[in-house]
């Protein structure tokens, strides 16, 4: 590798690192204060949750109730210590504060049939700052890759 290309790529690497740090660390505008408490009822039946996707504001104190319509189902929320089990006629509930923005999948934690591993829903804690940051970071990396591989 010639000295010129080496220097150019060094600059690209440094600039990319700086931009990525900026994208990850830049403060995000604050949003309106969340409601004190939210309660959302989720019903579970073979391989499906209703609602499939739940959107809540960051900081909300969220209570989930899980009701099963057919057999025993569970609900385990990624990135949170939330674990519930329900069976027909016996629902369960869990309360937590949605502290972190982003998309968190919840999954059935009790073997319930063929598609059990794919029984998935999601809680989206708004604003979706992680998605925005990761999108910007992807664009930074794309630009850097273009600059890195571009030949004069």
């Amino acid at each position, binding site marked *: 590798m010639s000295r010129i290309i080496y220097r150019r790529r060094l600059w690209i690497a440094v600039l990319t690192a700086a931009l990525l740090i900026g994208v990850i660390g830049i403060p995000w505008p604050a949003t309106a204060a969340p409601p004190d408490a939210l309660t959302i009822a989720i019903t579970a039946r073979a*391989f*499906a*949750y209703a609602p*499939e*996707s739940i959107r809540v504001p960051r900081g909300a104190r969220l209570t989930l109730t899980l009701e099963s319509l057919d057999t025993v189902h569970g609900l*385990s929320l*990624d*990135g949170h210590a939330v674990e519930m089990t329900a069976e027909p006629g016996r629902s369960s509930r869990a309360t937590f504060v949605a502290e972190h923005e*982003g*998309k968190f*999948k919840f*999954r059935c*934690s009790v*073997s319930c*049939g*063929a*598609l*059990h*591993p*794919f*029984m*998935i*829903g*999601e809680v989206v804690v708004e604003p979706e700052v*992680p*998605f925005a940051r*990761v*999108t910007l*970071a*992807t*664009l930074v*990396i*794309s630009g850097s*890759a*273009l600059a*890195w*591989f*571009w*030949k004069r």
Partner: protein
Amino acid sequence: MSARFELTRDPRVRHILASRWLPWLLIAATLPFFALAILTGLFGTPAGNRNFGIVFVWVVWWAVLILLLVPFGGRLWCAICPIPAPGEWLQRRAILGPRPGGRLHSLGLKWPRRLRNIWLQNAAFLLVALFAALILTTPLASAFVLLLMVGVALATSALFERRTFCRYLCPVGGFIGLYAQVAPLEVRVKDRSVCATHTVKTCYTGSEAGYGCPWLLYPATLDKNTYCGLCTECLKTCPHDNIGLYLRPPGADLVTGKGHRLDEAYKGMIMLTCALAYSVVLMGPWAALKEAAFAIGTPGWFAYAFVFLAANLVIVPGLFFACAVMSEQISHTTVPLRRLFVDYAYALVPLGLGAWAAFSVSFVFINLSYAWPVLSDPFGWGWNLFGTAQWTWTPYADGLLPYVQWLMLCLGLVGAIGVSLKTARDHHGRQVAAMPIVAFCVLFTLGLVWLYV
């Protein structure tokens, strides 16, 4: 090619690779697991997450294959795959040692010239992919697919020469070969002039030391990993010690621009589309899509099948073709459009591998803990062989997974951008012509990012 390092320069490595015991031992190690996967599929519990056949094939094996073996070893799996082993042993009438002259016992038919490509592998993969929701979750269906593969491999080896099944039919081998181009490992000839003067070509015909290339390759012309099964027969049969195993920069095959074909280009698009489709259907929150994919024969399934096949065969290739047209318009090149379409499609190889790694990492880490109970109770009959039968399901690294997925997508995207620019330079010197392809890759990546993060 200067950045290559010959691993077989070390006599100990060469001795191990040239040993007839190595492939036999590796296959002997995988064969019992494979047999158990079929037996548990046939006779075990129908609950997929309690059945060895589902958990060890579609979680453990898949994780090892797509996250380790393919990215770092290329077709390493093909060297230890038990599926063609019975057929190959029957062909050879030997399990370990070479027979005099490497003679094979089969009708020795030549595979039809028109089918000497991977179109049948593309079709076979799409067929399996179409029924994936069933095959991934139903032990009996999974066992049936594995048995079918063994049966076809056996029949093919009885009728046709060498590993015709692996080369032209195996649905798994097709995509492993495509993505093996990314791997930093290759078997190559050291000095082609030595091969030119070696009239016997024992690497292809076989000798007392071993069999002719089971993959129907002439190693002297080997310039990409796609069809080399890393079986190391050529290391055994070359009398001039002229074949080595090399470490190389990842993706080296993709920047040579050699041997690009429409069937491989389509494979790249099919793989990319399937990674997206599975991420939406299986790992997304939309239950109606999962139910449609699973309920085979219902109107919902037919609608799903239509959209799935259209996306794989028409929509994604069509969008990519439109990008190739835009590239042609920007560059005013005289290169035929079909050539541009095919060559640019190789940018989808790193992109697709990144997408499959990203999809797989979430599926695998979330479900890996099912492996411990089925080790103790593979059939789901209430055994507790190792005391792990009651271990409960625990998703691993669930909070981190979206970011690991994003990282894998970005690695694939960076590789795709590098290949796109190189292709543009090779064809018309104007790198800006690659921008439509780059935009396609970035938008695809952002689509998956939206699903995951």
